[in-house]
């Protein structure tokens, strides 16, 4: 026995074409025999009556009222269809974005962007540091995970944001999170690496890039790479994001092996993190850059360098460093780095080789750079002292031109160590830029040793960058650590 159900919305007008489209959707529902959504004019009511969908409720509608009239096989189907009709009418319309409108509208707020893309679950926030925390709170309060690229965010805000995120079960990557790869989608500075079963949680963006690229060289891929921001493992933040990241990757069926990357953490934080590592059944590689001696849980292995971390995670053997036919004329190494973690890794190699060096971002066991260039000086050009008011050298390699030319003119400098970081966000042709900066003088009497962090699938294509450098007489090492060892060898010989 068929059931006829009518509902009237007083003074609710919609264009008839829109209503017919909606009606079609209702008719298509299970158990619905006929349905109409029409304004209550006499002519429309006659149509609905003839179709056998009108009852006394609909008959009482005025021309300015909307009638929802339907006939279904039973009450259940009728109620279901009426509920659908209501929801179709009440659904916000036309917020799918600017499709078909030649004047495109880019949302100005997280609120508006979320309205345009209601199922979005991650916001990438890159606004000046002073405003970033406010935007981060807005995203988290909407239930959206955050990757905060912004730096110069006060640490109290970082703690508050991460606590809020933890309460809400959301991931707060950053502030100062440069790199993440989630479900194969690169965010911030990241390389095109294959998908695979190694998961990374890193407090260092370039660290994540170097490890993921070396893994790609070894034929391995990434499940997810999560960034935490550089301060996450300090005592006041307490490793909140690191712990949540480990939690996520531990629970992720696609992740077989987990790599942790950070500068040496606070003791209290290291303890908590390693305790959590020990609870997992998955194997871990722990790279607290430069830390060579720390008790590890049974399922974890310590890697002092990024290179070693990639070897441990892939099971690949160390390859011998390429031998250079060149010899260094000057006594000292001048390292000029775009990636801060690259600079740190080189310091580890120098320190562990027993070679005294200094740096503006010194790791434990290495001296602070004091302005005296007559020693092995390893400089992070991405440090705030060099980037204040200027772009980061990964984006604008010209930042390195002046110190590089100065080093080449300095007879005391035998080897210049440099790094190139490719991928999204990085300069389109850093190798070409460097060669152009050298100009006619070329490398002169100085040996330049470079590493290139990248893959063949990167927009810059690693092999073509390598070719440009080698053609200019620059030695290209397979990894940043390898480049450091070659430099050590050259000044020792």
């Amino acid at each position, binding site marked *: 026995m068929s059931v006829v159900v009518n509902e009237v919305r*007083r*003074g*609710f*007008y*919609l*264009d008839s*074409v*829109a209503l017919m489209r909606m009606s079609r959707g209702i008719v298509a529902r299970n158990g619905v025999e006929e349905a109409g959504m029409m304004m209550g004019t006499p002519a429309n009511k006659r149509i609905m009556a003839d179709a056998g969908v009108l009852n006394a409720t609909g008959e009482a509608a005025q021309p*300015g009222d909307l009638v929802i009239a339907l006939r279904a096989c039973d009450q259940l189907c009728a109620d279901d269809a009426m509920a659908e009709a209501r929801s179709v*009418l*009440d659904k*916000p*319309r*036309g*917020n*799918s974005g*600017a499709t078909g*409108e*030649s*004047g*495109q*509208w880019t*949302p*100005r*707020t997280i*609120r*508006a962007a979320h*309205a345009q893309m209601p199922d979005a679950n991650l916001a990438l926030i890159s606004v000046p540091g002073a405003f970033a925390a406010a935007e981060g709170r807005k995203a988290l*309060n909407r239930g959206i995970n955050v990757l905060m690229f912004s730096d110069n965010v006060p640490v109290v805000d970082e703690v508050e944001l991460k606590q809020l995120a933890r309460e809400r079960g959301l991931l707060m990557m950053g502030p100062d999170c440069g790199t993440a790869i989630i479900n194969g989608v690169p965010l911030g500075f990241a390389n095109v690496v294959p998908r695979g079963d190694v998961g990374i949680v890193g407090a260092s963006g370039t660290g994540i890039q170097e490890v993921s690229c070396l893994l790609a060289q070894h034929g391995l891929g990434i499940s997810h790479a999560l960034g935490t921001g550089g301060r996450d493992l300090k005592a006041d933040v307490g490793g909140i994001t690191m712990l949540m990241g480990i939690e996520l990757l531990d629970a992720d069926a696609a992740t077989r092996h987990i790599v942790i990357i950070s500068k040496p953490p606070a003791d209290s934080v290291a303890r908590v993190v390693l305790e959590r590592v020990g609870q997992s059944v998955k194997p871990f590689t722990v790279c607290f850059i430069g830390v060579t001696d720390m008790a590890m849980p049974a399922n974890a292995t310590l890697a002092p360098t990024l290179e070693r971390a990639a070897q441990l995670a892939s099971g690949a053997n160390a390859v011998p460093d390429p031998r250079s036919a060149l010899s260094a004329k000057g006594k000292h190494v001048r390292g000029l780095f775009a990636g801060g973690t690259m600079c740190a890794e080189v310091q580890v190699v120098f320190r562990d080789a027993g070679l005294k060096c200094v740096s503006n971002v010194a790791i434990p066991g290495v001296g602070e750079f004091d302005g005296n260039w007559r020693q092995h000086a390893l400089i992070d050009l991405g440090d705030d002292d060099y980037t204040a008011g200027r772009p980061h050298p990964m984006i604008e390699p010209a930042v390195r031109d002046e110190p590089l030319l100065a080093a080449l003119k300095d007879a005391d400098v035998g080897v210049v160590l440099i790094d190139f970081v490719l991928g999204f966000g990085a300069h389109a042709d850093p190798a070409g830029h460097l060669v152009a900066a050298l100009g006619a003088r070329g490398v002169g009497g100085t040996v330049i040793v470079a590493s290139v962090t990248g893959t063949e699938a990167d927009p810059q294509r690693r092999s073509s960058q390598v070719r440009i450098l080698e053609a200019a007489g620059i030695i290209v090492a397979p990894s940043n650590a390898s480049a450091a060892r070659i430099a050590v060898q050259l000044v020792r010989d």
Partner: protein
Amino acid sequence: MTDIAQTIDAANKEAVRRILSSEPVLIGVVRASEALPRLKAGTILHAGPPISWERMCGPMRGAVTGIAVFEGWASDLDDAERKAAAGAFTFEPNHHYDCVGPMTGMTTSSQMLMVVQNKTFGNLAYCAINEGLGKVMRFGGNDREVLDRIRWLTDVLGPALDAAIKDMGGIPLKAVIARGLTMGDEMHQRNVACSSLLLRQLAPALARTAKDNETLAKCLTFIGANDQFFLNVAMAMGKAMTDPARGIAGSSMVTAMCRNGTDFGIRVSGTGDQWFTAPVEMPKGLYFPGYSEADANPDMGDSAIVETIGLGGFAMGAAPAVVGFIGAGNASEAAVFTRAMGEICLADNPEWTIPSMDYKGVPTGIDIRLVVETGLMPTINTGVAHKKPGVGQVGAGVVKAPRGCFEQALVAFAATMGVKA
């Protein structure tokens, strides 16, 4: 989310609910002195926030002197000017008397006002009858022709309309707006569809109730020749819809925007009847032949009440023809205006939709927090008056509400929430 944010969200939800659940109906035309017992002889209601004679712009002064002569409070325009300067008249905003008026917005005791009742809440709002285009008092016109027309509106058209509307039992307005949006009106700059729709409904009743055929013909001709006839109806409707949303503690929604040619003023629900004002800006737009921006008076009128309920500049996506007229770019860019206003509004109106934007509802309920946060100022479609009294309209365009109003309002609003700026 913090308690304060939750309180504000709940209050704003209620404020929006009051606007969206309104059922505005045009119920008649009434003499101001009968409808507004507080409105005494010698009191002149004007558009915008409060202003003194000394600070009034040229067109506003022109209108004041004209209406004073019309009311018989001055023998001629010079006499009216002397009296105004001597403090013989009391000036008050329309908004303080449940009224709104376009441009100069003169409302005085013997004029006939259209009445819109919000059936949901029972409140009434009033607006004078639109005078048509050309040399008119709302643009500061004040010569014999202008005053004679107001006399005719008062003596003939007003009573005739009243009889017709009452004969029909009132005219529900929401459905008229909904259809007008699908026909290219945004109810501020362009009212041609709604004016026609209204006349289509009124004509049979006017024919039934008119005194004689000649009067009927004149009334039909006047309405039919005035593409902006519906504007004043839409304004009274806007006032009737926003008034119930006033005074909701914790609501950061704008309940009124208006301009007096000198200051722009807004009211916010949570701060009650306090005005937040800043200097008005100059409209950007197109000018009639022979005029330029040098002739233009700054922004004026209570008509921004239609933007306050999501029409006008907020419904630009419905009215590509307007975008062309105001020189804002390609017709297809109309949607961008509406999208932008969506960023500063609390809701979309599900009943007032824009076909060319996939039936997106017009953005409704301006949140001062979002205005300050995004730096997107409400866009208002407007006519442009000559800066000298008595000349009239010289163009049309868009104008932005000044940021200062919203910043002041936000600070005051924060104080009501116990937050210090």
